[in-house]
């Protein structure tokens, strides 16, 4: 589904990603862990198409297409979804109103008829129940005055509405207490199936108590320095990121 090859990218002349290689297949859950500043969020931003990042080398193939050649909106329309680390607050725009526009623009792109008000409401209700979010939150201005947990749930709700093929979740667990992490994780588990894939970006292992990944990748200095099964996360938790730094350091010297 996603094949990242030797990706180099940066922002304002500063290099952050130094040759990322990663392959994600349909049905898989991948997690990228790493210390602060290792480039995790940059990778998520580059994949979603954030404008101010410059790709200097490498390629990203998504569903057989050149992802880097696509506009942010076309990436979304092709089924890529980024759950933001810091969801934006937009006074004056309700989630409902915004989702209606989003769903219908994506349908138009795919050559489908727009949903009428009734069909849209039915879809809203179904997804609200699925991710356990309250109607009142969705009628309010987007994320304005929402708690950290409410913002992240709103992200998951949007993900449920848009039914992405590849969901990239950028530090969705950051700033959440244990209860909120459980609720968000439950929803992600419900939305994940054999036809889609999830890429979790996180700093902490604790999210993995609730979402079981197929692969764990450790990122350091803009590169994936170690990949392994879910047990790798436990090892990281036990030994801390210093062990990776040490291992990478040794490797480079050899």
């Amino acid at each position, binding site marked *: 589904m996603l094949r990242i090859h030797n990706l180099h990218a940066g922002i304002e002349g500063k290099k952050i990603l130094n040759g990322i290689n990663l392959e994600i297949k349909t049905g898989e859950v991948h997690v990228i862990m790493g210390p602060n500043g290792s480039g995790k969020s940059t990778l998520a931003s580059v994949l979603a198409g954030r404008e101010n990042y410059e790709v200097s080398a490498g390629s990203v193939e998504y569903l057989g297409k050149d992802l880097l050649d696509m506009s942010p*909106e076309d990436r*979304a329309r092709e089924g890529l979804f980024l759950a933001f680390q810091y969801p934006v607050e937009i006074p004056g*725009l309700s989630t409902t109103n915004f*989702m209606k526009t*989003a*769903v219908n*623009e994506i349908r138009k792109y795919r050559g489908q008829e727009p949903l009428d008000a009734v069909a849209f409401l039915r879809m809203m209700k179904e997804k609200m129940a699925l991710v356990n979010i309250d109607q009142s939150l969705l009628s309010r201005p987007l994320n304005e005055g929402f708690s950290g947990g409410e913002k992240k749930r709103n992200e998951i709700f949007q993900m449920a509405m848009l039914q992405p093929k590849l969901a990239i979740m950028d530090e969705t667990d950051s700033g959440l207490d244990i209860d909120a992490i459980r609720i968000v994780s439950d929803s992600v588990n419900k939305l994940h199936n054999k036809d889609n894939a999830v890429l979790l970006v996180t700093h902490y292992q604790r999210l993995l108590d609730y979402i079981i990944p197929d692969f764990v990748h450790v990122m350091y200095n803009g590169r994936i320095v170690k990949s392994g099964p879910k047990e790798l996360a436990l090892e990281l938790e036990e030994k801390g990121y210093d062990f990776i730094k040490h291992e990478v350091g040794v490797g480079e010297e050899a």
Partner: protein
Amino acid sequence: MNTIEYFKEHFDQLQLAGANSSLGAIRKNAFDVFSTLGIPTTRHEEWKYTRISGLFNKEYNFTVNPLTTSFTTNDMDGLHLPGHEQANELVFINGLFSFSLSIIRSPQLVVLPLEEASGNEYKNIVSKHLGHSGQYLKDGINALNTAFAYGAVFIHVKKGQSTEHPVYIYHISDARNSNSFSQPRSLVYVDENARLQLVETFVTVGEQESFTNQVIEIIVEKDAYLEYYKIQNDESHSSQVSTTHIRQVGKSYTHSVVISLNGNIIRNNLNVIFDAAHCESHLYGLYCLKNEMHVDNHTVVDNVQPHCLSNELYKGIVGDNATGVFNGKIFVRKDAQKTNAYQSNKNILLSENASVNAKPQLEIFADDVKCSHGCTVGSLDEEAQFYLMSRGLSKHSARALLLQAFAIDILENIKSEPIRLYVEQLISKRLEIDTV
């Protein structure tokens, strides 16, 4: 036109015709003021950013005789605002009030020529309040309107009455055959415990240029309620100086929304005078500008008496080569303790050539008051735009939704449903076209 001489000629004709009118003296005084001050230039502090002198360099047909207009009921087709079937419709043609084109549905409403009101039982009200705006607008253009307060209208909403039908005022410029200059004048008296919903709009018919210098003065008595909407969506060859002077003479409530969407040069003066304690006023404005448009909103809230509340929010979306001006004054006089006065002006610039000049001005002479003002000028939030695009919205839709969201807290303050829907439609249409 050679301004002062040109108007002097017309003025003399008019005064000859109505020399014995009780308005004659008021007009004469005003003309003297105009002769002294002339048309304001950008050297005048209140006109620093708005140049109207150029508008006077053209030839206009300045109608002083109502018989010369050939505007008929049929010509009104297509000009009505939504909800007009239920409204009292008052029509000015080239600045002169037309009884034949107006429709009055509410028995609570008295509509008279100002000349007549100035001589009958309303005499004292007219003499006390007509021209009060001149105390605040010390320039020749306000005086010019008063000097030609002819074909003007007086409106009375009777004591304890509520007009279930709103009042729509149409300022129509008939520019089919020649450039049109017009000076509509109204005096509105909202009596004790009465309610009025008033909508003013400007329409130019024809391809020639129009310039309207309009003044409405509204007196709001004790326990009265006024909702006021001004909708400016005229042609790009029409300019306006439009003055709304609201004087709250008893404990009362007023609410105004000024929407400017199309025109050439527009100058709006909105004054709210709290001449009684415990008054409240809410002032909203939205200007959505494109091309070469120039819109200037000057507002004054004068707290003469204590315990009053004013809340003001003006927002601007300025694109292309357009210019927005906001000047908001709040006066708190010595006796106006416990005043609460809030003001905010927010602007989004859509292009590099768009500009906004914003100036809040607070003059506070009392010591126990709460006042605030704030002003922002910025561009559309890029992060918000990316957020929406990352959900599949095109750049165009993302920008349109963000601008709509920006405007919404003004639009939701239009309490008249047909007018609100109408303005919302105009804005949606505008955003579709302009953000492509």
